């Protein structure tokens, strides 16, 4: 199998494995909910087997996706973090890894399911955008800053997605936990992931301004993507001021996390309708 084939087959295999893992978990859940009279020992055993298989499939999906990222790097001869397709692929791989980590630690299983679903969505999006690697324009010929700026950007989107998923789950539960002594697992995940996203987004902006000065001659150019990224950063800053008593995440804080994620999505996918200096990103 050539590297080019891995770049083509890896994402498809990863998506199939992710979907299979989700189906297995759903089946195991359904078996577990069968009435006691109808669920004999054999059904219980089947449910247990399915539950054990799910992490294996998820791990295989991670291998497929990270393999596709590496293969893409070999084919395009640079860090594969330029353009919508490559970023979507990297984010999908990171989300799949986060889903696996959540599943293995067992701390927040709904989060694992939601992360896997988000990874699948990212892969479906990747299928819709042009995949053919284009020659690297002179502006992107800076391997260090491409890796740092693009890498932190992908990681910020991944952390932001995890925080948003946890926040949505908290909102569904009512998020009325701020009065209790201890934060729930989901609250901790939402808070830490949001902080990580904020930190990473700060680095994205800093590194981006450094790169912009080296390439475009100005560290801040009022480019559409720059503005949207700073808007997402500001919403996260608002979140820091709105959360009642960390790491508790109340309703307002959860809404702020989801808003920040939406603005970050706009930053990422805005290339579909933005014009400006980041048109190739």
């Amino acid at each position: 199998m050539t590297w080019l084939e891995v770049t083509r087959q890896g994402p498809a295999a990863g998506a199939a494995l992710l979907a299979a893992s989700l189906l297995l978990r759903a089946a195991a859940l359904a078996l577990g909910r069968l009435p006691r009279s109808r669920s004999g020992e054999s059904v219980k055993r089947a449910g247990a087997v399915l539950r054990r298989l799910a992490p294996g499939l998820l791990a295989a999906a991670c291998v497929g996706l990270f393999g596709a990222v590496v293969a893409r790097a070999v084919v395009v001869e640079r860090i594969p973090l330029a353009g919508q397709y490559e970023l979507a692929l990297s984010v999908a791989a990171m989300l799949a890894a986060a889903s696996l980590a959540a599943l293995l630690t067992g701390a927040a299983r709904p989060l694992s399911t939601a992360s896997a679903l988000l990874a699948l969505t990212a892969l479906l999006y990747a299928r819709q955008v042009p995949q053919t690697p284009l020659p690297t324009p002179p502006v992107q010929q800076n391997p260090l800053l491409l890796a740092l700026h693009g890498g932190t950007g992908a990681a910020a989107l991944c952390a932001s997605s995890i925080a948003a998923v946890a926040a949505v789950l908290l909102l569904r539960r009512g998020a009325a936990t701020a009065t209790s002594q201890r934060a729930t697992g989901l609250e901790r995940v939402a808070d830490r992931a949001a902080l990580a996203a904020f930190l990473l987004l700060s680095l994205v902006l800093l590194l981006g301004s450094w790169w912009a000065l080296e390439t475009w001659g100005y560290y801040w150019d009022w480019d559409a993507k720059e503005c949207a990224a700073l808007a997402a950063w500001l919403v996260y800053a608002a979140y820091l001021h709105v959360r009642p008593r960390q790491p508790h995440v109340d309703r307002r804080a959860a809404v702020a996390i989801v808003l920040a994620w939406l603005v970050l999505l706009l930053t990422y996918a805005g290339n579909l309708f933005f014009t400006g200096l980041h048109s190739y990103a």
Partner: protein
Amino acid sequence: MPREVLSVGRGLAARRGTRLRQAWRLRYRLTPLTSSRSAMLQLSLLAAVLVAAALIPQSSAETGLAATDPASWSEAQRRTFGGAYPLMRALSLFDIRDALWFKLLLGSAAGAALLHLLSRPVRPSTDAPSPQAFRHMQPRYSISWAAEPTAVVPALAALLRRRGYAVRYSRSGSSPVVVAEAGRLGSLAAPAAHLGLVIVLTGAWIGSAVSFRDTGLYAPEGRVTAVGHGTGLLIKVVDVSVTSYPQADVLSGVTTTVDLLEGGRPVRMAARISVNKPLVYKGVRLLQMDAGPAVLLSVSDGAGRAPHLVAAPLTRRDDLDRAAGDVELSTGRLTAAVVTVPRGAAGAGDAALSLRLPDGTQLAGTASAGRPAVLGGVRVALVREMQFSRLQVSYQPEAPFVWLGGVLVVAGIALSYLVRPRRIGLQISSVDGGSTLTAVRLSGTVHLSDLHRLLDSGQTPEDGR
């Protein structure tokens, strides 16, 4: 927070006279502006403005028509936004950067951050909690031991120190008190982030006054060109190299080799400028934009006197897709439009000239290598074709300060993420030959159940003794 500010402020004011007291009062009155709610409001407003700036084309983003042809750019926006255009224009939504309301919003955010920074107590109160605090502060936790307080206190302190707490002894009424603090570095997180924000905004504000940027420095090969903008710098382009990807007709790189001169003396020889690798000298950045064809013209009067060379960069394409450009001739302030005929076409190597006289009259002619054109008393001969390099001159002395501010913001956030300040007070009371420990959380997220676990984790005060 307001309680601490008030107590610190009053204490200092009492010692330092009326003027200072008034200053402290003013500061206290302004404190509500630094509340989390007003910060949230300001940040949300700024975020909404920036989303608008992302969705509405900004004339200050120096790309496309906005920079080269502002009238056409405005017309394009009028067509896109239709009836909403006049209102959007009135609200400066196409140029948010320079809008007064945006500057006020930014200024208020910077002011609030600065105020928050100044209104924080210089150091946290070191007073032990009062006996009332132990009675009223919630949540609190009590645990009893058989040992006397004199034995419990050092054992408890040793236990807390092992857990990374800094321990101070005090008294509250007649009972000994242990105040334990951990993660004190974490209290610097918010000030660092706010200071960083103030530095970023101040740097950007100063930068808007002193920085400049010029994307149109056309430097023909072999010629000396002034960098301008009062820099006193000259560049001589030694070589222009343009490379493309072999399979696709796509640019892979542009490199210009220049000699940089200051006051007529060379300061950098054969320096290479390419995209991503600017030449930086005394804060002035020369960045590679693009390159293209140019023609070198010899211009003299009609009789061939006072000849001098003029390089004309051909920066645009004419209606027939030929390279074309405009140049101002020093002889009689004439503007010449030059069009070259591409190789392979009839008259290849010729340059079609169109001279515009000061009265608006246009004269046309053709010049080639050995055949000059004489138009309106000006003799123009084509010397040779060459390359020009388009460079950008940029001066942003504030950038390091903005980055320093940005690093402080990141450090502040990281600190708040990694180090959480915790402060607890432990009052040890003597009860029937034994001790009762009452613990209260003074700040941070210390869960008193954690303290219980700490004390029950095999290290009781008796063991510690």
